[in-house]
């Protein structure tokens, strides 16, 4: 109950400042640039959105920290965190409510890329089930990034530090599945460890997703990433609120 009250207030606050509009605009511009120029959307002559989705991990890498950096840093700095936490709302409700607002906001930005979906349907005959699954997977991944960012923001009063930390930790999570990283470990660590490392990666899970294969495994992977980092957020908040 109180979680939705927190969520509503938070979501409203995105739109009462220019943050929301600037973010959405930049997200739309960049995702189109990536799709058409780097992804060769037209040259591929295929009616799908793979060029669009495959750049999402990289796009999120620096756009999601821009949303998540203010989640807690700002509240701590202005003192509203103290107000919020003495208002008969549980810490869990606050953490989840604020996260959900950020996640819904990211979802909205994603939904607003629909002209691309219209375009691909106009030009060809794509598998819309695949596209829907990819959208869902991308949104789940955004949630993972946001949960990491939430925890990083709880660590510091400075939004700049929160931004950089979130970008860095997210990069680790993305790169864990990169050949560059995996090759460095190949041969001298047990296969089990290598698999574990690769399976921690956003990229490993998202590559399948961007082709429209959203398995239950990937679904739960992203949900558990979110749950773990939100749990960490809650602990960090409790530890650091006295400072």
């Amino acid at each position, binding site marked *: 109950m109180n979680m939705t009250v927190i969520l509503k207030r938070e979501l409203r606050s995105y739109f009462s400042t220019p943050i929301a509009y600037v973010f959405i605009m930049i997200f739309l511009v960049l995702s189109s640039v990536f799709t058409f120029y780097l992804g060769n959307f037209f040259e591929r002559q295929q009616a799908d959105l793979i060029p669009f989705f495959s750049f999402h991990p990289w796009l999120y890498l620096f756009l999601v920290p821009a949303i998540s950096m203010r989640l807690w840093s700002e509240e701590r700095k*202005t003192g509203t965190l103290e107000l919020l936490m003495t208002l*008969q709302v549980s810490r869990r409700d606050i953490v989840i409510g604020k996260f959900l607002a950020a996640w819904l906001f990211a979802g909205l930005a994603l939904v607003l890329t629909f002209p691309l979906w219209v375009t691909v349907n106009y030009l060809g005959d794509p598998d819309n089930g695949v596209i829907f699954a990819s959208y869902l997977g991308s949104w789940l991944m955004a949630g993972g990034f946001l949960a990491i960012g939430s925890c990083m923001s709880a660590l510091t009063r400075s939004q700049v530090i929160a931004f950089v930390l979130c970008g860095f930790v997210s990069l680790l999570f993305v790169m864990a599945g990169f050949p560059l990283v995996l090759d460095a470990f190949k041969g001298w660590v047990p296969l089990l460890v290598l698999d574990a490392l690769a399976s921690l990666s956003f990229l490993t899970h998202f590559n399948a997703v961007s082709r429209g294969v959203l398995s239950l495994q990937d679904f739960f992977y992203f949900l558990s990433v979110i749950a773990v980092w939100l749990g960490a957020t809650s602990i960090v908040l409790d530890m650091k609120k006295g400072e």
Partner: protein
Amino acid sequence: MIEVSHLTKAYGAFTAVDDLSFKLAPGEILGFLGPNGAGKSTTMKMLTGFLRPSSGQIRICGHDVAENSIAAQQCIGYLPEGAPAWEEMTPLAFLEFIAEVRGLQGEAGQQAIAAVVDTMSLTPVLQQKIETLSKGFKRRVGLAQAILHDPDVLILDEPTDGLDPNQKHQVREMIKGLSKDKIVIVSTHILEEVAAVCNRAIVLAGGRIVSDTTPAELFAQSEYHGAVSITLNDFSRLGEISDRLLDLEGVSDIRVENNQLTVLGHEHLFRAVFSMAQTEDWPVNAVHVEQGRLDEVFRKLTEGVAA
């Protein structure tokens, strides 16, 4: 009812609040006094369940704050230091949010908001963003938020800090106007405030209680309590007047500041001093009895206590 027993908060080797115990009954308006860093805010943060004590227990309205903080928070209205609020919201949206969180839905919420908007005179700024408001209005928005759900316990951290004299007066009237079955805790380092609104005063220094008494008792501790001040319009007879006063029975000391002469001694000097001034025809403008000087008492109590 508030019961605090052996409350302690330590940060590493530094003890911010050291073994605090006190009880408050409905109707008590407690002034929390103390120099900066004495532990006033830390104590309030623990009372409201924001900080967890290192040791000790707090019970508010029958609820243990550590075990059941939500239930305790339901009966507390809290104004944190600096009256924080989300700057991008309007006071109206802010109060609507607080009402919802406090479980005041629909009609009940609207009524509660209308009532606090009226008490705090917020009507002219209801639709303005909080970031554009003056300090006084921001403070009033914070106070409105604290009293919105008509809590049994009101905890206000420096409610009049940064307000002009009119606004200070308004806030004090508001606190005094609260119904008599509430408990109010006000932290401040403004001493007149305690005299103006409180019926109990706890002085903290170095995290410990150095005095727990009534404001009247605090005044009585002053060496100026009952002293007689004489304002002269002609200083040529100062020496003679001082000598005559020192001869009076019960006079222990005479202080001269500006054009004022203060006679210290036992409590009932006024009549003797006044009749002497009349019979000897001193050039006197005014004679009055001092209540006591709180800043002197405050210094006496808190100086030398390690912060």
